[in-house]
């Protein structure tokens, strides 16, 4: 079975292009909602022992403390999450006592993040993403150094970099939309998940590139496009299988793993799916397009 993947390359680029443009548009229009780990502030998770009062009543109860903008989100049956400006432990205890006076509650968790911590985390995240992109690109260029013809090995690195950027922009776009619609925040678990996606989404790219490398070494470098299509056809089955087997436990985490791991597994699911798409439909066709483009440029000269 030999599928002509590169024939519809423009169509695949189109789909990705639209998704990426939509994601960037969402990022510009809505921005990302960062969690308190990044912005600083307090986060209090409570469970009401009786019934959950309305947000208004809760707001009134804590009005005396001048907590700035308070975000109140209901969770599960009787729980709420309150987010407000950073307060010290004494104030925290006073707030809790005040709420406890009005309703019976159990405090499930409390988190306070100072402003300096948040800025530091933002910087570190940026550095980590850039570092990861660079390291992976270099590693791939190095791993495929033996196949410098007909396309040089650094182009393998660059095309996987393009695929990686694809895999990180699309989930970010999804989170921009979710943030706008459902107040979903970018938190530390999501950052960890997105970085993992970077490492994982190249797995399929590598499997395909590895087959291209083998086929070129075996059959010579003539007819590059056919070699790419052959390699893709040979590996597409196992690429889908590996992605599927990785997604299975992630879906288990998403549905059964509890609140904290929900968006963590969600971002992994989007990222890995997008990674599978980009490995098959973007990275390898790009190698062919790039070669054709070079040839055309060469012919013009």
């Amino acid at each position, binding site marked *: 079975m030999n599928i002509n993947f590169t024939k519809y390359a423009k169509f695949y680029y189109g789909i990705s292009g639209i998704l990426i443009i939509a994601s960037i548009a969402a990022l510009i229009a809505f921005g990302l909602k960062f969690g308190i*780990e990044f912005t600083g502030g307090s986060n209090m*998770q409570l469970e009401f022992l009786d019934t959950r009062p309305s947000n208004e009543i809760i707001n009134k109860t804590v009005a005396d403390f001048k907590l700035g903008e308070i975000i109140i989100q209901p969770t599960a049956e009787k729980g709420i999450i309150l987010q407000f400006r950073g307060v*010290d*432990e*004494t104030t925290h205890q006073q707030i809790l006592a005040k709420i406890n006076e009005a309703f019976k509650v*159990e*405090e*499930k*968790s*409390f*988190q*306070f*993040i*100072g402003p*300096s*911590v948040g800025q530091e985390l933002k910087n570190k*995240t940026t*550095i*980590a993403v850039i*570092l*990861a992109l660079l*390291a*992976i690109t270099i*590693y*791939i260029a190095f*791993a495929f150094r033996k196949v410098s013809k007909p396309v040089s090995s650094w182009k393998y690195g660059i095309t996987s970099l393009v695929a990686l950027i694809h895999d990180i922009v699309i989930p970010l776009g999804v989170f921009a939309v979710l943030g706008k619609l459902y107040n979903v925040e970018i938190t530390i*678990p999501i*950052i*960890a998940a997105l*970085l*993992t996606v*970077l*490492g994982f989404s*190249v*797995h399929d790219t*590598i*499997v395909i590139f*590895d*087959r291209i490398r083998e086929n070129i070494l075996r059959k010579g470098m003539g007819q590059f496009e056919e070699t790419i299509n052959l390699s893709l056809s040979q*590996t597409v089955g*196992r690429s889908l*299988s*590996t992605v*599927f*087997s*990785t*997604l*299975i*436990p*992630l879906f*288990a*985490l998403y549905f*059964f*793993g*509890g*609140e*904290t*791991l929900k968006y*963590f597994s969600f971002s*992994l699911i989007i990222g890995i799916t997008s990674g599978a798409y980009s490995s098959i439909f973007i990275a390898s066709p790009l190698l062919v397009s790039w070669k054709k483009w070079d040839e055309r440029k060469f012919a013009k000269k």
Partner: protein
Amino acid sequence: MIKSKYLIFIAVIILAVLVGNFAQPIYFDKGVNFLNKKFGWTLPNFPEKPYVLGLDLQGGVNLVYEADLNGVIDKAGAMSGLRDIIERRVNMFGVSEPVVQVQGQNRLVVELPGVKDVQEAIKMIGQTPYLEFDEQRTEEESKIILDKMKEVQAVLDKKEDITTVKDWQIALENPYFKPTDLTGKYLKKATIIFDQTTFKPQIELKFDDAGSKLFEEITARNIQKPLAIYLDNASIIDTNGDGKIDAYDVYAPIIQTKISGGQAVISGSMSTQTANDIARRLNSGALPVKIGDPISQEKVGPTLGSASLQKSLWAGVYGLLAVALFMILFYRLPGLLASIALLIYVGIVLSIFKLVPVTLTLAGIGGFVLSIGMAVDANILIFARMKEEILNGKGISESINEGFVRAWPSIRDSNMNSLIVCAILFMFATSFIKGFALTLSIGILVSLFSAIFITRILLQVFITSWAEKAKWLL
């Protein structure tokens, strides 16, 4: 070759039994207890070692402090002194297994599992260290306090109110030593030095001008008497060797002579380690580092923690079963063998978590569950390659070998990339990310072993020439 194949296979089975029981000894223990009961044997239970759970799973509070190191020259020394002081305090606070760590240049992380009164804990941690030098009480003074203590104890034994005892506060005093005016603020520096002739460690103290005068007066009136050193109202070191510092410890060097000039040496036999501890703590009392209020705080209630643990564990079990089912449906016999290897993989990883021990957090469990899916990826690549070779007309055992050999470069390269990302994740100080990166990297490394080594042995043992006639199974 054939013999060694079976030997390795037996080794794998032994490994599987060991890690399986180590990770989850309950079934083995149940069986043993049953046999012991039935036949009156006394077989031992499997060696038990508990998992170490992080704060988000067992409940507790995590506090991050930023120390004010302005004007401090030896920053690393000051931080290790601070860490030591805070550790002493939380240990005295009665918290089980607290963690106090220096992070980066000036951060201090304090983890207190199971603490309820966070306010009290923060107050206690934030206090400035207090170093004092106490002189011996006279015998009459000691007797008065000891008598009062007996009196109060008698009332306590009758479960009556101690405030009925006249001057009951006296019983709270230290019966043997009383504070002098000399405190940490008069101490300039403590250094560890070595005796020129005996090479034994000694501690040199330097006081400032006011301190020198006080020290001269105190030494003059206490010749041949002990001078006790207290830090935060407790002995500066553990002197009776029971591993904790409490009311039974007193560190009190004997004053040999009147000392003027504000420079003194504590000699006497002590290990370099002890001398270091004393000097460091004296310095922490002399130049206290201020930490103020925590810059971040996270408290997780015990019920939330155990609920999270249950949920994430069940998610892991469902994920594992679904992956095994997928492998068996798609890859039949090899898939079944890969699922067995996957179970051994889970056993090995859990055993490593116990042995190291890895502090398990929600993120760590997330990383582990993710690694279950990734662990079979290598097998999928190998089996797909194997099928290809069989379709090309190669024999079964040759195809198995080719599958492993040919799939290896892409397995190696792709897992390397995930490990690179894990290494980058480690640069985050955040415990969530660190826990995740740690379990994921352990998972990746072990999966290379299980998916390649263990699966290969299983395939070689179970899929031999007979399979040429039953290719549908492959």
